[in-house]
C-alpha cells in the first residue's frame, strides 16, 4: 500500500484517535448524568489553566517521558518492556540509598550521583529478564511483568525492615537531607523574579527528561549501537547475517531501557516526595507503554504524548476533586485514550491510508 504523507502519519492519525477517545468519554460522562463540557472545562483549567496546574502537569510529564523513552528503546530492538513499573521502583531504591548514604553538600553533586544510582538499579532490574530472553528465550513480556511484582515485594521488605527510621510507623524511608533538595521549577522562576506555580512538584528533573529525549534520539539514529538495535528489531535473521549479536543487542537495549525507567525516580522520589514511599511509581511504568505507542516511538513524539498524559493525569485528579464524577471514570477516559491510540491504531490508520491513496490517484 502506498504510504501517507509524513504529517498525516505523525500528527493526523493520533489526533483523530484522540478525538474519537474523547467523544466516547463524553458519551460515558453523559450516560452517568454529568456534563461533558463541564468536565472538559475542569480538566483543562485544572491542568493547563494556571501555573499551579502546569506545575503538576509538567511533573507528571517528566515521569512519563522517562518511562515512555524506556518502552521506546526496547521497542526499537523488537522487545516489549512492560517492566517499567518495577524498574522505576528499583530506581527509587537506588536514589534513596545514594542520597541517604552520604552527607551531600549540594544538590548539584547529589543529582548526578542519585541519577546514576537510579539508572544503575533500573538497568540491573532489567538485566535478568534481558539475559533470560537472550539466552533462554523466556519471553520478555512475561518476565518483565513478573519482575514488577518482585520489585514491589522487595521494596516492601526494604521499607518495612531496613529503611524505615526507628520509631516511625509509616513504611517509608527517612526524609532526605535538606541539602539534597532539588530546585523546583517554581523556585527557579522565583529566582528570575517570576511568581510561577508555587508549591508544585515540577523540578529540575524536567530538564533532565528533555536532555534524555535528545540523547535517546542520538543513540537510536546517530550511533552504531542504535543502528544495530533498529536492525535487530526489524529482522533478527537479517541482523544475525550482518554479524550483529542478538544476545548483545537484547541485553544492551534492555539495560538502556531499564536505566531510563529507573531515572524516573529522580523526579518522583528525589524531586517530589524527598523520601521513598510505597507505590511511589503510581502506574507511570504502564502509562509509559501508551506514551511510547502514541509517540510513534520517537523521542519528540514521546515528549508530546507524555505531555498529553500529564494533562490527563492532572486534569483527571482535578475532575475527581471538583466534580462528582468518580475517580474510576478518569481511569476509563485514560484507558480509552490508550485503547484508541495504541490498540486500535489501525482502525484510524487504514481508512486514512486509503483516503490518501484515493486522493493521490485523483491528483495523478
Amino acid at each position, binding site marked *: 500500500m502506498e504510504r501517507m504523507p509524513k504529517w498525516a502519519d505523525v500528527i493526523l492519525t493520533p489526533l483523530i484517535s484522540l478525538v474519537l477517545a474523547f467523544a466516547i468519554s463524553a458519551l460515558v460522562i453523559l450516560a452517568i448524568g454529568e456534563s461533558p463540557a463541564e468536565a472538559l472545562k475542569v480538566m483543562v483549567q485544572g491542568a493547563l489553566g494556571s501555573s499551579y496546574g502546569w506545575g503538576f502537569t509538567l511533573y507528571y510529564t517528566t515521569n512519563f517521558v522517562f518511562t515512555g523513552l524506556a518502552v521506546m528503546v526496547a521497542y526499537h530492538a523488537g522487545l516489549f518492556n512492560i517492566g517499567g513499573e518495577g524498574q522505576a521502583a528499583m530506581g527509587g531504591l537506588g536514589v534513596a540509598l545514594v542520597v541517604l548514604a552520604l552527607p551531600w553538600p549540594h544538590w548539584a553533586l547529589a543529582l548526578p550521583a542519585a541519577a546514576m544510582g537510579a539508572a544503575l538499579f533500573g538497568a540491573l532490574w532489567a538485566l535478568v529478564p534481558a539475559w533470560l530472553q537472550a539466552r533462554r528465550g523466556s519471553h520478555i513480556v512475561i518476565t518483565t511483568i513478573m519482575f514488577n511484582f518482585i520489585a514491589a515485594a522487595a521494596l516492601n521488605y526494604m521499607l518495612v525492615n531496613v529503611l524505615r527510621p526507628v520509631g516511625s510507623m509509616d513504611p517509608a524511608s527517612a526524609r532526605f537531607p535538606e541539602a539534597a533538595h532539588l530546585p523546583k521549577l517554581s523556585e527557579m522562576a522565583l529566582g528570575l523574579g*517570576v511568581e510561577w506555580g508555587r*508549591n508544585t*512538584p515540577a523540578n529540575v528533573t524536567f530538564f533532565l527528561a528533555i536532555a534524555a529525549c535528545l540523547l535517546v534520539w542520538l543513540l537510536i539514529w546517530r550511533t552504531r549501537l542504535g543502528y544495530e538495535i533498529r536492525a535487530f528489531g526489524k529482522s533478527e535473521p537479517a541482523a544475525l547475517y550482518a554479524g550483529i549479536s542478538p544476545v548483545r543487542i537484547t541485553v544492551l537495549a534492555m539495560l538502556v531501557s531499564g536505566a531510563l525507567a529507573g531515572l524516573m525516580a529522580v523526579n518522583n522520589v528525589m524531586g517530589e516526595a524527598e523520601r521513598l514511599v*510505597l*507505590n511511589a511509581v503510581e502506574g507511570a511504568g504502564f502509562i509509559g507503554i501508551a506514551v511510547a505507542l502514541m509517540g510513534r516511538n520517537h523521542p519528540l513524539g514521546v515528549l508530546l504524548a507524555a505531555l498529553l498524559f500529564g494533562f490527563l493525569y492532572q486534569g483527571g*485528579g482535578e475532575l475527581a476533586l471538583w466534580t462528582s464524577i468518580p*475517580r474510576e471514570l478518569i481511569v476509563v477516559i485514560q484507558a480509552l485514550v490508550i485503547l484508541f491510540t495504541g490498540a486500535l491504531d489501525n482502525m484510524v490508520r487504514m481508512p486514512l491510508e486509503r483516503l490518501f491513496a484515493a486522493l493521490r490517484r485523483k491528483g495523478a
Partner: protein
Amino acid sequence: MSLMKSLLAGACLTLLPVAALADPALIFDLGGKFDKSFNEAAYNGAERWKAETGGTYKELEMQSEAQREQALRRLAQSGANPIVMTGFAFGEVLAKIAPDYPDTKFVIIDMVVEQPNVQSVVFTEEQGSYLAGVAAALASKSGTVGFIGGMDIPLIHKFECGYAQGFKATRPDGTLIINYTGTTPAAWNDPVKGSELLKAQVSQGADVVYAAAGGTGIGVLQAAADAGVLSIGVDSNQNHLHPGKVLTSMVKGVDNSVYEAFKAGTEVEPGVRVMDLASGGVSLAMDENNKPLISDEIAGAIDTAAKAIEAGEITVHDYMADNTCPVQ
C-alpha cells in the same frame, strides 16, 4: 520556556476554579471511605455536621501512598479550611506542608504533629481495648480468644496490648492468639486475608476474636459469623453487621472529632487532644443487636472496669509509651 509559560499562566490565573471559601474538607486514608470502621466513622461525623448545618464539604479518598502530599496541597490551595485527615500515615506529609499554609487549620487523627496550625487528635485505644478484653474473657467458653490486627505497627499493638491486659486480668489462665494481616497499608483493606486468619484462629480454639484492622475487619466479622464464633468490631459500631454474632465494638469517637472540627471551622484549636474513656472518646458499643450476648455478669464487669479506669484505680499500659507490653 518556563518564562513564556508563566506569562501564559498569569493570564489564566483568574480562571482557577474557586471553591466556596472556608468549606471544610475531609481526606480518607487507604482502606476507603466505606470501610465500615475507621474511615467510615469520620465520614459519619462529617455527614452529621452536614445534616445539622446544611453546609458542604470536600472529600477525597486516597488511592495510593504517593498521593498524600498532592491531595493535601490541592485542598489547602483550594481554600478548604479546616482540613481533616484520618490516619497516622499523613503525619510526615502534614509536618512538611503545614508551614506552607499558615492560614489553614489542619486536624489529624491518630497522630501527633507539632505545628502551630495543626490539631492532633489521639485516642486512648488501650482503655477501650481493655474493656473489650474483659468482655471477651467472660464471653469465651473455650478460654481461648483471638486478636487480628491490620498493619503491624505500634498503634495496633496498642489495641492488642490493652485487649491482652483486660483479658488476662479477668482470666489469668486463658490463651490469647495474635495475628497481623500485613506490614503495609494494604493490610487495612484485605478482608479475604482477614477471614483466613479468623479461620486459622478458630481452628486453634478461639471463640471470641477482636479485629482491629479497618476494612480487613469486615472479612473477620463475616467469617466469624459463618463459623459461629463471636467477634468484636472496632472504630465504628459494627454490631449491626451481623446482629447477634458481634459481641461488641470498641468504638473510637472519630465521628465526634470530625464533627467538632467541622463545627469549629477555622476556629479549630491547635494542639493535642487526647480522647479517653472518661471523655467518651473510646467506649464499647451496646445496642439491641448485641443485647442477647451481653449477660448481666459481662455488663457488670465492663462497668466495674470502666469505673476503675476512669478513677485511675486501673492503669492500662500504653504500648506506644515504651513499645513493650507487660502482658503476653
